[in-house]
């Protein structure tokens, strides 16, 4: 390909090339995506074994805690039965956000990102649990696939057309802010279906981003709106692993001088849920482990 200067509009790949790439990565990750689909099916399916709960006049099992008050109330407080609660129907909106910045290309993470994108999007579409959106981010955020469109192989190829790993910034702050808006819109559109809606974002990136404090605040805001964010760090290891990376910060000391602080980069990473993946083969197990943990926490929090 021709080398283009940064200032010139970023070239994207041709439709034919995108189709070829999509089928290449889809084939390469086929077995893995079957395995991921199976693991996710177990996690994402609503829990079938439901609990006995509640205070009813009739039911299946006595609520022991209600017996003494029942007798003490001269048999008036008679809601002493529990019933099996019906599992609520859940639907999902899952957004894959893929880092399209130049560092992805330079570190060799682009290929791993394509593999991850093919693997995860294919698995989710086979699951048929809800809607999938895909966005690319760098200096700008671009929607490559919208929630309300079906995710087919044709759609996968069109998504690939949008990526070139040439954007000259990695604005994760902008990504999170715009994602929150996209999730809000999608939630409004899907309201009225009666199903309980769960929103999840998977970010696929080499993990190098700045302004961690601002990002941390935005991630907390997303959490308050029940949007779960999982950051998948693609660690291509060309050069060096992100595990060995550190960060130099300068704080102003009381005397007005500069105080150097060095820390391990990942120690200040602003996402509570992140995974480091250096080989796409490990993704199904690591990703499903992270999601299982998240679901356990959400279910616990909602009682």
């Amino acid at each position: 390909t021709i080398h283009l200067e940064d200032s010139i509009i970023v070239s994207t790949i041709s439709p034919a090339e995108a189709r070829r790439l999509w089928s290449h990565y889809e084939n390469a990750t086929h077995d893995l995506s079957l395995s991921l689909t199976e693991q996710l099916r177990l996690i994402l399916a609503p829990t079938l074994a439901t609990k006995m709960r509640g205070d009813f006049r009739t039911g299946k099992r006595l609520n022991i805690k209600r017996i003494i008050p029942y007798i003490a109330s001269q048999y008036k407080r008679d809601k002493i039965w529990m019933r099996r609660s019906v599992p609520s129907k859940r639907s999902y909106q899952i957004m894959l956000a893929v880092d399209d910045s130049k560092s992805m290309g330079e570190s060799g993470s682009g290929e791993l990102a394509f593999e991850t994108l093919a693997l995860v999007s294919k698995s989710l579409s086979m699951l048929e649990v809800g809607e999938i959106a895909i966005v690319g981010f760098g200096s700008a955020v671009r929607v490559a696939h919208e929630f309300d469109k079906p995710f087919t192989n044709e759609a996968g190829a069109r998504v690939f057309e949008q990526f070139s790993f040439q954007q000259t910034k990695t604005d994760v702050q902008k990504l999170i802010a715009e994602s929150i808006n996209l999730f809000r819109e999608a939630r409004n559109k899907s309201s009225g279906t009666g199903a309980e809606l769960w929103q999840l974002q998977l970010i696929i990136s080499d993990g190098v981003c700045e302004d961690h404090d601002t990002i941390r605040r935005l991630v907390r805001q997303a959490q308050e709106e029940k949007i779960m964010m999982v950051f998948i760090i693609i660690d291509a290891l060309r050069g060096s692993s992100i595990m060995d990376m550190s960060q130099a910060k300068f704080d102003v000391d009381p005397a007005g001088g500069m105080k150097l602080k060095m820390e391990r980069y990942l120690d200040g990473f602003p996402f509570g849920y992140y995974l480091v993946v250096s080989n796409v083969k490990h993704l199904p197990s690591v990703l499903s482990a992270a999601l299982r943990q998240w679901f356990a926490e959400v279910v616990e929090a909602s009682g």
Partner: protein
Amino acid sequence: MSTDPTVAAEPLSGAQVKVQFTTRHPDISLPENTGPILVPTHLRRYGLSSIINHLIASEKPIPFDFLIAGTFLRTSLDEYLTANGISSESTLTLEYVRSLVPPLYLASF
């Protein structure tokens, strides 16, 4: 660009670039497992020197000079990147040597 230290002290967050430090002098080389380091792009040789001094745990601060692609860095990293049309998405390789010239603007990061 101002050399006023109070102005230089302002941008504590903001743009960063990934650098890999190297040297040809074994007596000032970094510990073997030192990985890449994300540094603020407003740094100049003085700020970069303090990072090297920290990493090699020198008792007395040593002033260093930095070379990028064989040329001495005389500006901030930010100015260097802009002047050379390089984005902060790249990893910069910075070679460092003991400085022969005493630093002119000690207060300027």
